[in-house]
């Protein structure tokens, strides 16, 4: 609210102090638009969401050579103003000035990849009908020059009826000329504005505009003398049915290792650091509720948010790097058929794979999927992939209940059960995707139609900025929700406190304990004792917390003793049911918080919680009852 008021032109200000020029960047995907945005605004950018939608709003500021302020808005990439996805709706409405709460842009800069002009010329012709001044930026002109591709800028400008500026965003070439051109275009534009003649282009409009763009191409562009042969040569290997898949798997292996193992020392350091910090702070505070809130609630809560940061940073470093190079579209091509079997888009592969480490970066990574339905399906099934937080729980139960012996002479039975739990996660994720498609979006498979951009060297500055932005978004937006969930879980497990002379562990007297006792009858058919039910409540904070919670309810210190104690208290059927429960249960408040952030509504996290709880209960029930019939009870 306040920001909008501050940015509006001040009433009664002198005429020679005009409001900052608003420039919108529009362009096809892969045209280097984000690099141009970075070159224009540097570090002076703000990332937020458009109100009511999950689309990212990127705005930056700069000072032109004449000292005037300019506001630049980076709009989502599109091939046309004919919006097909939520991102493209934002682009269309922003350009047309229909976005509620947004000041319409004064100038539109149409960003073009100079080596791939045809489609963007059609977009620029379409933009011209909106009635706002348009400037065409021929980005990556250096690559065009290297290929011997000659663009007659004067002829192009005349034919298109708009100023044309050549730029190289990554080397900051042409940036000042581009701003000058935008300012000049705004000045030359009639103050009362030109009529908005835009309408959603029909099939024949698109054909006509395409013919016009082709005519202008012939007029102003001489085809490259040394066309890019690298992309073709690389694709021969990278899209090869055998080598391509092999290279993709190798790349994923490295990525997975880096996320899974590379992040481990830093995560351990963060955990240990926060434990130490909490301990030190605890010494300074008198025992009591305040100490408990600060140490067990807030410090542990902040630690549990920060602990995800290394994985998120490493994962996004890979994803943004692969996207920048142009490989991500190839990975989607290679995996599309496999994903299509489950009704998912090829691009869902990386997010789902990332979810093996942690569903949170996986869900954040679904931003690479343009279509809303494809993205939502991917988000909804991502937590079924076995994340690393389940490992401590699996390890505890398996080592306590599954005999350590070999099957068929060489396969470890414990390892086999472990593998089975992973496989159950993958299979159920794919099945859930199929079912979700059938129920919610029957037959609504989006067409798979995707440009394979030419490969290019990555730009370190852009990759670094992209990674930092992801980390910032996670800390600022997801972090606040995760922290509040953590404090809620702390509250439930702490209040009311144990009465004087209590014999049972304190958690048993708390709300978590009450809930555990209350749901015990419901949990009986799946073989859960009240202690198990109680441990599930703090386990909502994060799956691995359940291990510590079990130790608390059984009043045991040290995990070695815990396994032995569980083996005495639980039947094998209950233990197997507990494992089955953990394959499906939505035992992670952070994941639900991130889903809420990414979908911008409580509907999806609630739906996720509902369907996963049902699956968990169903699976645990089947496992428990079957095991009892098989006399494991």
């Amino acid at each position, binding site marked *: 609210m306040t920001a909008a008021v501050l940015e509006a032109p001040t009433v009664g200000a002198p005429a020679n102090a005009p409001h900052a020029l608003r420039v919108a960047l529009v362009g096809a995907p892969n045209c280097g638009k984000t690099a141009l945005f970075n070159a224009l605004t540097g570090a002076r950018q703000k990332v937020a969401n458009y109100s009511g939608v999950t689309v990212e709003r990127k705005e930056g500021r700069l000072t032109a050579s004449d000292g005037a302020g300019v506001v630049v808005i980076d709009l989502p990439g599109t*091939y*046309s103003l*004919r919006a*097909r996805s939520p991102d493209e709706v934002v682009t269309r409405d922003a350009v047309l000035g229909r976005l509620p709460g947004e000041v319409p842009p004064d100038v539109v800069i149409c960003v073009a990849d100079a080596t*791939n002009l*045809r*489609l963007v010329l*059609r977009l620029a012709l379409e933009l011209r009908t909106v009635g706002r001044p348009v400037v065409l930026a021929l980005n990556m002109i250096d690559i065009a020059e290297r290929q011997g591709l000659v663009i007659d800028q004067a002829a192009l400008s005349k034919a298109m009826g708009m100023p044309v500026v050549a730029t190289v965003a990554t080397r900051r070439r042409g940036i000042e000329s581009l701003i000058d051109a935008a300012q000049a275009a705004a000045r030359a534009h009639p103050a009362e504005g030109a009529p908005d003649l835009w309408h959603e*282009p029909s*099939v024949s409009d*698109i*054909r006509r505009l*395409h*013919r016009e763009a082709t005519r202008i191409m012939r007029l102003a562009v001489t*085809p490259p003398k040394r066309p890019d042969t690298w*992309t*073709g040569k690389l*694709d021969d290997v990278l*899209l*090869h*049915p*055998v080598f*391509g*898949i092999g290279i993709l798997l190798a790349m994923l292996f490295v990525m997975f290792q880096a996320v899974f193992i590379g992040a481990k020392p830093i995560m351990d350091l963060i955990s240990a650091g926060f434990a130490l910090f909490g301990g030190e702070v605890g010494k300074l505070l008198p025992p009591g509720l305040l100490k408990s809130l600060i140490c067990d609630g807030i410090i542990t809560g902040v630690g549990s948010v920060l602990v995800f940061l290394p994985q998120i940073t490493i994962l996004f470093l890979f994803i943004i790097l692969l996207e920048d190079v142009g490989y991500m*579209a190839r990975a*989607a*091509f*290679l995996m*599309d*058929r*496999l994903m*299509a079997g489950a009704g998912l888009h*090829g691009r869902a592969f990386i997010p789902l794979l990332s979810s093996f480490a942690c569903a949170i970066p996986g869900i954040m990574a679904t931003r690479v999927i343009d279509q809303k*339905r494809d993205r939502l399906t991917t988000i909804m099934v991502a937590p079924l992939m076995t994340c690393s937080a389940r490992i401590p729980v699996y390890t505890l139960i398996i080592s306590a209940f599954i005999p350590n012996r070999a099957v068929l002479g060489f396969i470890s039975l414990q390892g086999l059960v472990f593998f089975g739990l992973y496989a159950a996660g993958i299979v159920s994720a794919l099945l859930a995707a199929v079912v979700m498609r059938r129920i919610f*979006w029957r*037959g*609504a*498979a*989006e*067409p*798979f*139609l*995707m*440009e*394979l*951009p*030419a490969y290019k060297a990555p730009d370190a500055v852009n990759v670094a900025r992209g990674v930092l932005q992801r980390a910032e978004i996670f800390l600022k937006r997801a972090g606040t929700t995760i922290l509040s969930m953590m404090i809620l879980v702390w509250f439930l497990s702490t209040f009311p406190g144990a009465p004087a002379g209590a014999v049972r562990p304190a958690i048993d007297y708390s709300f978590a304990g009450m809930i555990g006792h209350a749901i015990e009858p419901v949990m009986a058919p799946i073989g859960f004792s009240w202690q198990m039910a109680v441990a599930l409540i703090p386990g909502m904070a994060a799956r691995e917390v359940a291990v510590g919670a079990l130790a608390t309810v059984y009043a045991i210190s040290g995990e070695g003793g815990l396994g032995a104690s569980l083996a005495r208290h639980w039947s094998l059927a209950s233990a197997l049911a507990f494992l089955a429960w953990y394959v499906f249960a939505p035992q992670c408040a952070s994941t639900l918080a991130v889903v809420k952030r990414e979908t911008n509504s409580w509907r999806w996290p609630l739906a996720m919680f509902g369907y996963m709880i049902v699956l968990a209960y169903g699976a645990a029930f089947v496992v428990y009852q079957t095991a009892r019939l098989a006399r494991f009870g």
Partner: protein
Amino acid sequence: MIIVLNNPTHRFTALPASLASAVSNLPRDNALGDFTLGDQRRGFSGVITGLSFGPTGQSGGVSSLELERRLLEMGFVEGARVEILHEGFIGRDPIAVKLDDMRVALRRREARCVRVRGGS
């Protein structure tokens, strides 16, 4: 094959409806002396002659009009040169094509709506 004449999604850009229904009774690849891109193999090279969305042309969750616009926006326009560069490893699907001066990936289901004529 069942032809529904007044099906609004049954559209044939190149021919009048009556003629279109007549020819779509013929084997698909011979109907107009041209083929669909979706039925071609790697190495095929030719020119796009039109887009067609008959009863056999599925368009998934979007209407055929919407699919036609998406294909056009991606550059699948009459007269564009197209060459199949790569095929997926399961069922040779999806395909990667060179379309004039850019590269595009699409599933065969969508590519079956693109009519092509072979030869240089």
